[in-house]
């Protein structure tokens, strides 16, 4: 019987934990490697290569992630990926829905639980915790402000997976501090449901064994 493995970023995992089918073999991954897409790609390839057997499915719970998924391949299994440029599209329900929110204001900073709070409960939006440790509060504030140049608003996406009240509060405080407008977006788990359900269509990339994920896979219109 065909098995389905799910290699998933922790940031996405917390937005869909309740809808992951019980028979999926989940390999949850840390978010931190996102800052080094080449290393993230190497890491994901190692995990893919370590999956035994033949002719199973490996679902990747990742967006394009600065090309971290481009070049991934499996000799023995199919790779299944959402055709989305950014994981926020997964939380919005589709690439087109994400595009609409982005087009409303190109300087939108999207937020979810894991962008705000680390697994161990630290406030780590834009690596704020690391900056405080390295530079002290005054410089950390200055640097964060610098990183937010051209951003006009922050949008908290609520997928309905957990109580967002504490994150709303943190996001609002963040917006006040950095003079951003605050807004909320009602998310949708439909694309995550599709990814896990094998009801795969044009919104999903299917890579046959021996083939590689390419950038062009993502540029094919999924809208």
């Amino acid at each position, binding site marked *: 019987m065909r098995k389905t493995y799910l290699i998933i970023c922790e940031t996405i995992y917390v937005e869909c934990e309740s809808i992951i089918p019980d028979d999926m073999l989940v390999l949850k991954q840390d978010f931190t490697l996102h800052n080094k897409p080449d290393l993230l790609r190497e890491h994901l390839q190692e995990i893919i290569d370590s999956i035994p057997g033949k002719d199973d499915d490996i679902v990747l719970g990742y967006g394009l992630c600065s090309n971290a998924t481009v070049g*991934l391949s499996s000799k023995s299994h199919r790779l299944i990926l959402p055709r989305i*440029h*950014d994981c926020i599209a997964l939380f919005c329900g589709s690439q087109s829905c994400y595009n609409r929110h982005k087009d409303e204001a190109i300087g939108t900073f999207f937020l979810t639980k894991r962008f705000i709070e680390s697994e161990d409960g630290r406030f780590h939006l834009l690596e704020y915790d690391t900056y405080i440790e*390295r530079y002290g509060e005054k410089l950390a504030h200055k640097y964060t402000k610098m990183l937010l140049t*051209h951003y006009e608003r922050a949008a908290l996406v609520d997928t309905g997976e957990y109580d967002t009240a504490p994150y709303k509060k943190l996001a609002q405080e963040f917006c006040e501090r950095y003079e951003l407008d605050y807004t909320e977006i009602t998310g949708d788990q439909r694309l995550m449901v599709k990814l896990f359900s094998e009801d795969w269509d044009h919104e999903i990339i299917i890579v046959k064994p021996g083939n*590689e994920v390419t*950038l062009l896979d993502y540029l094919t219109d999924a809208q």
Partner: protein
Amino acid sequence: MSDLINKLYEAVIEGEEDDALEIAKASIEAGLEPLKVIRGGIQAAMDLMGDQFENGEAFLPELMLAGDAATLAMEVLLAKIKEDGGEGADSGTVVIGVMAGDHHDIGKNLVRAILSANGFKVIDLGIDVGVRDFIETAKRENAKIIACSTLITTSLPYQKELIETLDAMKIREKYQVILGGGPVTPQWTNMIKADGYSNTASECVELCKQLVSRDLEGGAADPIIIGALNA
């Protein structure tokens, strides 16, 4: 090496914009050769910061601040070279910007600073730049290179549109179009028939040097790819 050059080197590394500007001015008043100041005080500092960032020793804000300090100091030193009628630092003109629909400019600003530190005249069009703006500016400034950056995949098609527009205007051979940004790959560069790609801001200097020195009168050449992805 002059004390002022050392001080400028330190100011750039520390990202102290005001200090870098003042020291650059002081070096001119002291009669130091601007090119020597650029090489020892700015290029060397940006090289070090680039290496430290790649190795994970420096963080992004430090690199950004160093880039801003380098750009400010470069402006006064390049103005002095021009005033003296020299062209020693003129490696060519680059028009740079972030493609329409995108506002992520950290990478673009780093490339601007590093190219500027290496003697290129960089015209920065900022963010959310339309295809026509790139082309009109390149024509007006007699630029050799158009550098277009984007972090988001949805703006990638504008890079393609830029090249198609140059083709349609029959001026494609006048410009070397280079691509940058998170989602850009050598494969994409080849596919849309751009002229160059580098994986890092530092490697972009070598890319631009190679591109300005090649002659395209005889027709299109293969793109130059420096630092391909590990994929």
